[in-house]
């Protein structure tokens, strides 16, 4: 029997607006079954229209509490945005499938604060179209190691008890074992798909930070222990794991706190269970500073951080501090076990060379992640890239 939507998730939202076009979709039907009637409104267009081009902090906060179920009219399957900055960043072959936008959690550093301009959280009801796009690509390139993630502009799993999209995706990817799917989350919502395991090409990954950072900067997310317990469940059910120690956030006790995190991962998991561990340091677009200041004040470790403009425009910590932080993590993991497969996320070639003394293509275990793959439809179409979420 289908799992009901938990009450505590329903209570997070003020309203669910369902686009007329999506009214009869499976996800809308599920929402209509479990949400109270007074929270649901049938609409013919996106709610809260008539505002300016950018969201105010209040509008951004409101967008986290209101869902708009609608169809997505562009190309679902795209290259990760990091790959479009090849001149300044060293990026892996990663593709994204956006089945919604916005997040019901509230991290102080979240890049969506400068990325989204929609006044509501969106859930796209036409997942069948997304699966058709994947099917078209997979049937042509089933033998190539395409990696697809659903957690770019929405957490992959924190809303999954509403959509249950994970179930359709896991079933799809089980047909294409060379392809891999990544669910990237800061939640502990995994129970809804565990019965579909084993599926080693489905990687459930956690963006993780020490408990102190989770407490101070990652509001509304699952706690450290809850995330690791969910990861253990995934291993037991035959899914593979990844961890993203990203963004690392400097604070006076950073060494002790990140050492604790690394010790816990090393104690509870093996390099065979965890396909990759990516490491990145705090970074954000300059325009995001104002939104963060207004939403979180200056007591946050993010807004009060000493950040500098870097090549490519983002604000980052001093390069030598980043180097020290990455070295610390790499060494600490390797002291536990040299087999851990580590890489840097959205970093410059200089930082790669300083940290690994080689480029990612030369790092054993990372070659497949960085080797060029055939272009997909959206990379060849200006029209597709012009469609915004």
């Amino acid at each position, binding site marked *: 029997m289908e799992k009901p939507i938990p009450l505590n998730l329903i209570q997070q939202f003020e309203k669910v607006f369902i686009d007329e076009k999506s009214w009869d979709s499976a996800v809308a039907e599920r929402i209509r079954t479990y949400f109270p009637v007074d929270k649901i409104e049938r609409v013919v267009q996106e709610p809260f229209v008539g505002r300016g081009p950018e969201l105010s902090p209040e509008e951004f906060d409101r967008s986290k509490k209101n869902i708009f179920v609608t169809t997505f009219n562009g190309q679902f399957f795209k290259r990760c945005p990091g790959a479009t900055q090849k001149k300044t960043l060293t990026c892996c072959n990663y593709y994204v499938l956006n089945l919604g936008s916005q997040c019901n959690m509230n991290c102080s550093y979240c890049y969506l604060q400068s990325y989204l301009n929609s006044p509501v959280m969106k859930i796209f009801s036409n997942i069948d179209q997304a699966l058709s796009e994947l099917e078209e690509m997979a049937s042509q390139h089933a033998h190539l190691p395409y990696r697809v993630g659903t957690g770019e502009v929405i957490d992959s799993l924190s809303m999954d008890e509403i959509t249950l999209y994970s179930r359709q995706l896991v079933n799809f990817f089980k047909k294409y074992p060379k392809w891999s799917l990544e669910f990237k989350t800061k939640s502990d919502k995994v129970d809804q798909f565990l019965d579909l395991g084993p599926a080693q090409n489905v990687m459930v990954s956690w963006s993780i930070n020490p408990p102190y950072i989770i407490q101070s900067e990652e509001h509304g997310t699952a706690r450290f222990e809850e995330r690791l317990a969910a990861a253990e469940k995934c291993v037991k059910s035959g899914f593979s794991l990844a961890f993203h120690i990203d963004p690392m956030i400097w604070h006076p006790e950073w060494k002790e706190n990140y050492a604790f995190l690394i010790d816990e991962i090393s104690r509870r998991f093996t390099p065979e269970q965890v396909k990759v561990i990516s490491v990145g340091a705090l970074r954000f677009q300059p325009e995001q500073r104002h939104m963060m*200041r207004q939403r979180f*004040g*200056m007591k946050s470790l993010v*807004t*009060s951080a*000493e*950040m*500098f*403009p*870097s*090549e490519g425009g983002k*604000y*980052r*910590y*001093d*390069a*030598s*501090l*980043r180097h020290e932080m990455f070295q610390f993590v790499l060494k600490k993991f390797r002291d536990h076990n040299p087999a851990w497969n580590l890489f840097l996320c959205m970093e410059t070639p200089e930082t790669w060379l300083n940290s690994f003394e080689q480029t990612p293509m030369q790092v054993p275990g990372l070659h497949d992640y960085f080797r060029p793959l055939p272009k997909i439809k959206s990379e060849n179409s200006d029209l597709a890239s012009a469609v915004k979420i």
Partner: protein
Amino acid sequence: MELILLNTKSEELILDQQIPAEDIIKKLKLLRYPKTLASDEEKKNNSLLWPTSTQVQAQRRGDRWGYNIHFFVSGPQELTKTIEQFQKAAEQWKNQSH
């Protein structure tokens, strides 16, 4: 504005009009980026033995701290000698970083 929000003492933010603008900017930067600028200063004090024909200036460029180096050579032997001296400076820098 960030300094005010960071609860910086108001007397530290009162700017004396007699002080040159450059020094005021320096003072404000020190208040906002104390850890990084202290570290820059420390690195600046670890002086390296640069080739005699060079003009070296330590500086911060965005998220990177480093040296801006100018040099002039008038022949291949002088260039070779300068490169050798640069290599020595690089070794010295490497040792200081460890």
